[in-house]
């Protein structure tokens, strides 16, 4: 048991360090000949060198008044992405996992909302409100707050800090660290991959895990690795924005979380079929 936990933690450390490496590689300056990321060498060209000090609004022949020509780089866009909206057969719950954003290419207000609805009431939910800021070509940093709500338990609030983006080999990553009151800490990590079987049929493996810094008996969460979920979902994209799916998800709890589960008469491990809809607009 102990050994298994150690192995899992080791795997986790590896996963996180892998992510770090991926980020670091993108950040690292390993010489001028790198094709992606890196930092500008000292002798890099000045992109304003040809301006003679003129700007879009000053200098000869500039239009009077405020600058009229604004292109999409100065527009704000928005999107709502329903990554998972599904019925879980075994637990008879409906799960939602949405993300919405509003903003520009490099700075966005991000809302992440996830929760379980069972018997017509919201059992538990977790909502992040974040400022997303571009870190490099493929990753955003995210900074903000999270509110956890439990129908049976104690609500928690956290400060959130994380990264989200696309790693090499097309892995979608979302990793956030949290600091709560009374010295509580948590780490949530998600990874997804899209295996395109055909132009419209897509198999999506997904992994999610949660760690906590200390026990939270009220909410049945133990310190260390609390839970790990591995799922695979097969969706058909009627169009890119509307795709029903079926899947299977395996969830396992560890350490004290598993003990809390057992004490509550629940299984520590659970495998269930899911059916849902992926959409965005």
């Amino acid at each position, binding site marked *: 048991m102990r050994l298994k936990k150690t192995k899992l933690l080791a795997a986790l450390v590896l996963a996180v360090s892998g992510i770090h490496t991926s980020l670091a590689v993108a950040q690292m300056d390993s010489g001028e000949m790198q*094709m992606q990321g890196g930092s500008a060498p000292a002798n890099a060209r000045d992109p304003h060198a040809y301006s003679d000090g003129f700007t879009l609004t000053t200098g000869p*022949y500039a239009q009077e008044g405020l600058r009229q020509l604004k292109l999409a780089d100065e527009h704000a866009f928005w999107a709502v992405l329903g990554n998972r909206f599904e019925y879980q057969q075994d637990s008879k719950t409906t799960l939602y996992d949405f993300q919405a954003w509003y903003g520009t290419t490099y700075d966005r207000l991000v809302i992440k909302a996830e929760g379980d609805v069972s018997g017509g009431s919201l059992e538990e939910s977790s909502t992040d409100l974040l400022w997303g800021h571009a870190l490099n070509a493929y990753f955003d940093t995210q900074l903000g707050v999270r509110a956890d709500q439990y129908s049976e338990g104690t609500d928690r609030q956290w400060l959130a800090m994380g990264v989200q983006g696309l790693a090499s080999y*097309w892995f979608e990553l979302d990793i956030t660290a949290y600091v709560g009151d009374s010295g509580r800490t948590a780490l949530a990590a998600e990874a997804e991959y899209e295996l395109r079987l055909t132009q419209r049929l897509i198999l999506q493996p997904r992994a999610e895990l949660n760690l906590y810094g200390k026990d939270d008996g009220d909410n049945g969460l133990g310190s260390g690795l609390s839970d790990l979920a591995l799922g695979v979902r097969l969706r058909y994209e009627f169009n890119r*924005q509307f795709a029903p799916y079926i899947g299977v998800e395996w969830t396992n709890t560890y350490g004290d979380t598993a003990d809390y589960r057992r004490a509550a008469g629940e299984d520590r491990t659970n495998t269930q079929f899911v059916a849902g809809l992926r959409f965005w607009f």
Partner: protein
Amino acid sequence: MPPSFPHPKQLARRRFVQGLAAGGVLAATPAWIRAAVANKTRLGAAPVLSGRVIDLVIAETPVNFTGVTRMATTINGSIPGPTLRLREGDEVTIRVNNRLAESTSIHWHGILLPYQMDGVPGISFNGIAPGETFVYRFTLRQSGTYWYHSHSGFQEMTGMYGALIIEPRSGERHPADQDHVVQLSDWTDEDPMHAFSKLKVQSDIYNFSQPTFFEFTRDVSSMGLQAALEKRQMWNQMRMNPTDLADLSAATFTYLMNGTAPANNWTGLYNKGDRVRLRFINAASNSFFDVRIPGLKMTVIQSDGQDVEPISIDEFRFGPGETYDVLVEPNDDAYTLFAQSMERSGYALGTLATRQGLSASIPALDPVEWLTMTDMMGAMSHQGMNQKGMDHSAMSMGNMDMGGMDHSNMHGGMAMDHSQHSGQSMPGMNQATRSPLAKPSSTVRHARTEYGPSVDQRVNTPRTTLDDPGIGLRDLSEKGLRPQGHRVLTLADLKSIDGVLDDQREPVRELELHLTGNMERYSWSFDGLEFGKSTPVSLRHNERVRIILQNDTMMTHPMHLHGMWSELETDQGELRVRRHTIPVQPAQRISYLTTPHDLGRWAWHCHLLFHMDAGMFREVVVS
């Protein structure tokens, strides 16, 4: 007539791609529009307006290309707008009345004129407010085939474009018996801004030619696991899509020839034995077309309105903004004008025939070809590495081993040039003693703003040759896609005729800018700076200046510089051809000279409308 090649194949004839047979601008146009149209509208051809005073009315008009009625933005109620036939040397007055609920504008693409007449809102003027009439007045200092379009928002994409033909004072160099404008465009039923915002969320939303798992398994069985993995390794590591050939496709577009969907078959007529001039204009918002007429050789006589030494070809590619005039001599009854889009999702189609109602066989769309290492990193892939055999391990993203590149040579060469700088070039001087600006610099200098979130890749070993027809057009005969001897036009084939490139001065300085982007974020820019963050490029009046454009993306960008010519040169500094829109291929570094004769502020941008609007746009100040 040789048999058309390859044999026609029945395509999935979706309405979207083919369009609706009865489509086009709806007949029920208001009376005032009909009143504004001087000539009678002919099927599939724009009305022709000529003279020194022209009236244009911009309004919303219902259209139906796909079975769904949508509002288009039209000029005098037709798509394309009227063909303007003007005369070189004339001072023309063009009154543009705006009957839209929003501001509009018209830009005269490729025309030299005072900057206030150039029609770019926010740069040359304030735009034309709803209800207002703006009077354009300028003297035509050139001749040839050009076009005009809105430069406001996405109005060009919803129908605001037309041909502009300026007849030379001295008469046509190549008189023809028939003269047809062939204007290609792309139509979407979507609101263009909605399409753009979708790309902002998922940039591959219109790409239905993506690599798939089953394609991978087929490769494994045909080339083995190792090779199949290697073929994908670099793309996957770099998060780049090898089929990212266009941002939009027939998933949303219906491609039009003279405002006519393929199902409606625009037809240009001739009599047997005629010499027929076809004025091809790419008026599409976001689509490159590969044009051919199976069974007919085309002789290119003009590009971007400027006469070139005639060259006989079978096919050419052109991007939004470019024009090619060709001569053909058809002897059969009917030929298909076939223009497949670069990403091979659809085509615009028409027929050249001796009478209405005829058609010839329609070629199949070519298969989608993956981008190559040449498109990703340029010249490096030529150095003894072929596609399949290349050693990826030595070229991974983070630690590209460039030890083999001889940089000392480049720098050494430059240094030597500097030491012998004579200040002027003399004919007959050999390469070593010419001034350093005799040929374009080959040293890659990335801007410091290319290392941030706006840029997903940089090219360190660009290719500088002009003779690549581009992805999907290479070695077609060898691949069995075209007959033997099939010739595809490249930039290297184009040579302005004597007297066109009149300014033989060497450039006094050299500007280097890179074309950049981030496909995942759907952002496009120069030097990693979108328009809103950029500063103008300042040029001095009448100076001879060299512009080097290096494409650090994997897409071809048709770069259009307003207000002055772009005079393309080889990497050896030999002037070749005068253009107003120059396509820069992936990982290519090209250069052109210009002499800004007209003062003012000018636009300079990628003519893929979405790239322009995303920020691949600079202002140029001539003072």
